[in-house]
């Protein structure tokens, strides 16, 4: 899934991709900033699969998602970020399927003229992705049979993080 607006000076470029495959952060930054000299700041956030969850070691994460809604929901939050900060570009990539420790799960890239907007928008988008984008993580334990897969529980701290941005 791919949404791309026309690029150019002062225009905002938006890319949303939901994919099974790993992503390349450097390549995504390059794609967002190519042929543009108005961007002065790029911030990225990468969520990475750890080797442990709640103190127990895991062999992989499996992510289920609601494809159409995930894309729509991410798009709505990008639009909210754009209304709040002077952004020149946003890329959000969220993976689904099986993800091994050390691999990226989610990538947010934000571009603006100055760093404040880029940093803040990346944090804002991540806080909302955690609590509002329809993805569900399941952990695979070592020696895993199907029965050993466990759904990750939502954290209250993630709700608190999203709430601090105020009434959405």
């Amino acid at each position: 899934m791919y949404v791309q607006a026309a690029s150019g000076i002062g225009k905002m470029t938006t890319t949303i991709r939901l994919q099974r495959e790993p992503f390349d952060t450097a390549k995504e930054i390059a794609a967002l900033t190519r042929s543009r000299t108005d961007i002065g700041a790029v911030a990225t956030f990468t969520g990475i699969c750890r080797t442990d969850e709640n103190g127990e070691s895991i062999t992989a994460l499996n992510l289920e998602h609601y494809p159409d809604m995930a894309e729509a929901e991410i798009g709505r939050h990008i639009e909210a970020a754009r209304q709040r900060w002077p952004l020149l570009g946003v890329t959000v990539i969220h993976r689904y399927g099986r993800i091994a420790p050390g691999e990226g799960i989610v990538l947010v890239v934000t571009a603006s003229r100055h760093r404040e907007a880029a940093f803040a928008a990346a944090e804002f988008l991540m806080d909302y992705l955690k609590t509002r984008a329809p993805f569900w993580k399941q952990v695979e334990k070592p020696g895993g049979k199907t029965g050993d897969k466990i759904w990750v529980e939502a954290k209250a701290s993630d709700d608190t993080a999203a709430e601090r941005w105020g009434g959405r």
Partner: protein
Amino acid sequence: MKVRYFAWVRERVGKTEEDIDPPAGVATIGDLVSWLARQGEGYAYAFENPNVVRSAIDKRHVRPDARIAGASEIAFFPPMTGG
């Protein structure tokens, strides 16, 4: 209308999606949850704690008091854990 289930709600119900035709009087998401919970053991288990299950109408998050008239796709799922 079409109903879709995700993650452990899907596992408990035992279906990814289905077409349903709830009786008149099932007006809101909350009514629909109560009705679904009476449709069998899997449904009862999925909706045993209705405050935990989240819902969406036509790919937008909604609260239990949202009206379902005119909805083409309703989804039920646990709190989200992406990112």
